[in-house]
């Protein structure tokens, strides 16, 4: 019977292929969306760990999170160097990473920071950053040095010793290139799978140099940066700070349990309006706002699968009419109506199985050959790992749904077979 179903399908391969392709595409979509959804969430929550508080000027927690962890967006408010010094002096702070952002190189965000980043920043399961080549800023005498994220180094084909020019602004096309300050690459980080890979890290002092903050009387003040609004505070500091303003500060505590209390202390700091967020919580909240979108995506891909299956149902039903003769012949050689019913169910099952298999194969093809492109074009990270249990369930669900759906045309064929008997009028 199985062979018969196959032969019959082969006979109608033209329309059957279309059905198979429709099912394959919808399977591909469903699996793809599922994979992107799960892996994005994973990557997302892996971006930062071990940091207890992120502090910035008073702003929304999502904004602060996006700029400090994902290097997306531009914080319009900054916190002053004095506030940073205050943060360092708070009890229980074991380490601190200052970050000043706003510039870019070839579209990659430039993060001005200190070597504390390489020592204390952790991602994933509390994994520290490590160098694939070269080392941190401090090992150099030069100020204009840079450490590159793995992705930047790979895409721009830069390595230790290369020069790069930092431009102001975050766009791919920058309007004011600071040609005078080529930076020398001194280190390349190991790949992390986080936004760190796409970052260009320079010392805070170099940031001051680029913006003319470090040398206040050099006449470089024409730049109308918003950073310069803070210049009135100069006389308060005793030693000249490398920069006057920071975008964010990451704090690590001796006792993470005290994060909540410290958060309150920082939020009520009198010197400047600051806000402190707990990255884990902020990530969760942010993900929740995204989940609506995510659920819509899943719903759409399920609808596409249903459309594919309905397409199969339609072709099956349409084929019944022209196959009444075939059914009568089978009846005449002794096939029972149940056999006719089974034939159609087997047929639908085979079509769906081939479709689902092709769709899965398609997914892996896309992942193997297109993961790079996805990563580069959309920043979506998906890997060609084996099917998860949930994905297998999804595939089985498609097969079961198709088999159940096919019962409808199969039932029709069964009824036809009983009513027509052997006298089919064409």
């Amino acid at each position, binding site marked *: *019977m199985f062979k*018969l179903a196959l*032969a*019959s399908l*082969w*006979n109608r391969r033209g329309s059957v292929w279309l059905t198979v392709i429709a099912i394959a595409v919808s399977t591909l979509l469903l699996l793809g969306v599922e994979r992107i959804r799960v892996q994005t969430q994973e990557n997302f929550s892996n971006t930062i760990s071990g940091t207890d508080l992120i502090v910035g000027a008073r702003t929304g927690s999502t904004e602060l999170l996006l700029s400090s962890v994902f290097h997306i967006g531009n914080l319009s408010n900054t916190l002053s160097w004095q506030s940073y010094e205050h943060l360092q002096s708070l009890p229980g702070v074991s380490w601190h990473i200052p970050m000043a952002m706003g510039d870019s190189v070839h579209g990659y965000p430039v993060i001005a920071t200190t070597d504390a980043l390489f020592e204390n920043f952790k991602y994933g399961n509390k994994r520290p950053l490590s160098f694939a080549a070269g080392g941190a800023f401090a090992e150099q005498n030069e100020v204009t040095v840079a450490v590159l994220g793995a992705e930047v180094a790979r895409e721009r084909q830069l390595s230790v010793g290369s020069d790069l020019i930092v431009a102001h602004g975050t766009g791919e096309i920058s309007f004011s290139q600071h040609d005078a300050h080529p930076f020398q690459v001194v280190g390349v980080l190991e790949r992390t799978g986080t936004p760190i890979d796409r970052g260009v890290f320079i010392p805070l002092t170099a940031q001051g140099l680029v913006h003319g903050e470090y040398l206040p009387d050099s006449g470089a003040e024409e730049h109308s940066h918003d950073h310069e609004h803070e210049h009135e505070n100069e006389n308060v500091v005793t030693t000249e700070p490398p920069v006057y303003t920071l975008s964010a500060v990451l704090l690590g505590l001796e006792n993470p349990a005290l994060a909540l209390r410290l958060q309150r202390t920082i939020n009520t700091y009198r010197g400047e309006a600051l806000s402190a967020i707990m990255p884990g919580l902020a990530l969760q909240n942010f993900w929740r706002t995204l989940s609506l979108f995510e659920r819509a995506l899943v719903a759409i891909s399920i609808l596409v699968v249903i459309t594919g299956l309905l397409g199969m149902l339609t072709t099956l039903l349409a084929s019944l009419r022209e196959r009444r*003769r*075939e059914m*009568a*012949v*089978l*009846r*005449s*050689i*002794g*096939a*029972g*109506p*149940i*056999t006719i019913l089974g034939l159609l169910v087997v047929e639908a099952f085979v079509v769906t199985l081939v479709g689902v298999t092709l769709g899965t194969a398609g997914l892996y093809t896309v992942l193997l050959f297109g993961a790079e492109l996805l990563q580069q074009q959309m920043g979506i990270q998906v890997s060609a790992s084996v099917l998860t249990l949930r994905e297998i369930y999804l595939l089985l669900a498609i097969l079961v749904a198709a088999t159940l759906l096919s019962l409808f045309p199969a039932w029709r064929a069964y009824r036809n077979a009983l009513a027509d*008997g*052997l*006298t089919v009028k*064409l």
Partner: protein
Amino acid sequence: MSTCIELKQLQFKWPGAQLPLLSIPELTIARGERVLLRGASGSGKSTLLGLIAGIHTTGAGQVKVLGQDLAGLNQHRRDQLRANEIGYIFQQFNLLPYLSARANVTLACQFAPARRKRLSQQSIEQEAKQLLTRLGLTPEQQQQPSHQLSVGQQQRVAAARALLGSPALIIADEPTSALDQAHRDNFIQLLFEACDAQNTTLLFVTHDATLAPLFPRAIELSEINQGAVADV
């Protein structure tokens, strides 16, 4: 000689019809007989064949095939009886177009264990080949997809399928109406020879009265049927 088909007080009415289409007090066909059943179009010939083949059913005791009361068998048993003991030839479109001629013939054994058993000395494939060769199809033609064969060739393939595995009864529902006279006579001759070789009963249905002289026994449906005859 035992009987092959036995009709007694047969009454058959299509659902929704006012009067019974068939009402046959008595008809007996012995094993090995060659019978022509003639009737006008719409007189219920195909319906009667459907009853004998166990596709449709009537009350108990009305239709007996090979000694078995069809009304006493369930659907599955009737399908089995048909698969094992009845070879059926249609007027046209007998074959599954996507199978080769030979595959169409071997299909006869698909649902019929008894037929397979009767062939056990030889493989089904071998037997089908011999049968087709005897009916005049070259080995190349036997491997062709059946829709590439001429109508006459297709009918011969259908006959081979009906004959494979020596069923007790061959039912032919106007198998020659799409053939010209020369092919028609030739086809009937082949059918006779094959039936003789296997001692198979042949029930041949047609509306064409000119075939009657070829058969030892010819029955007019209108003479045995007292049911309502549809106007032609």
